[in-house]
């Protein structure tokens, strides 16, 4: 049976592409959850601690985008 467009999870190409897609998904989930936390009153420092990174790192990664979205967070 030839199904060139159907996922065959036994194929390493599909599973490795799944890893790539998971990394992109993790970025998207991080964007959404950081925004949600700030909207709920979390400070950048709290978000940074929760993600296990420095406040500077999380601020650098998200501040511009969230400022555009109207979410600046406390502790600026």
């Amino acid at each position, binding site marked *: 049976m030839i199904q060139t467009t159907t996922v065959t999870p036994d194929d390493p190409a599909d599973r490795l*592409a799944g890893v790539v897609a998971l990394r992109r998904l993790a970025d998207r989930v991080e964007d959404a959850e950081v925004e949600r936390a700030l909207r709920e009153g979390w400070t950048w420092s709290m978000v940074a601690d929760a993600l296990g990174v420095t406040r500077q790192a999380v601020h650098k990664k998200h501040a511009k*985008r969230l400022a555009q979205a109207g979410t600046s967070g406390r502790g600026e």
Partner: protein
Amino acid sequence: MFERLEPDTRRAVIRAAYDEAQGLGSSTLEAEHLLLAVAADPGTAAGRLLVESGLDHDGLVAALDLETERSLAAVGVALSDFGLAGRPVATRRKAGFATSAKQSLARSVGLASGRGERTLSPVHLLVGILRGEIGTVPRALAAAGVDRVELIGRAELLLER
């Protein structure tokens, strides 16, 4: 590598590819963003070929979405489990130039210099992108039902004109 690009092509396509990456919320500029940039300009022969093949910009975005959905399914994950609204949010972060994009450019430059051509056209770029046999681009083309090898053949014919 970039200096081998014709200045107009370099400015237009690379800048457009950065915009594509940022618009899709990607932290990296990948081969698929170069392809989106080529597809977004039907004023070029390469862009027209993509549109004629059913891969206009929006068609390509849809194919990439389908590729993501299938790849996540292969590792047992469904996008719908995450409650993410709609499309990825655009980022303001400048994307880093990823390996898949570097390799696409390297193949394009190799193609042009192998033919003794001093400048790199969008068609060279398209062929260089399409010649990647493994990764997101070939998977998205397959998801869209596009025959990648046949498309490369049609793109290579454009080089003869």
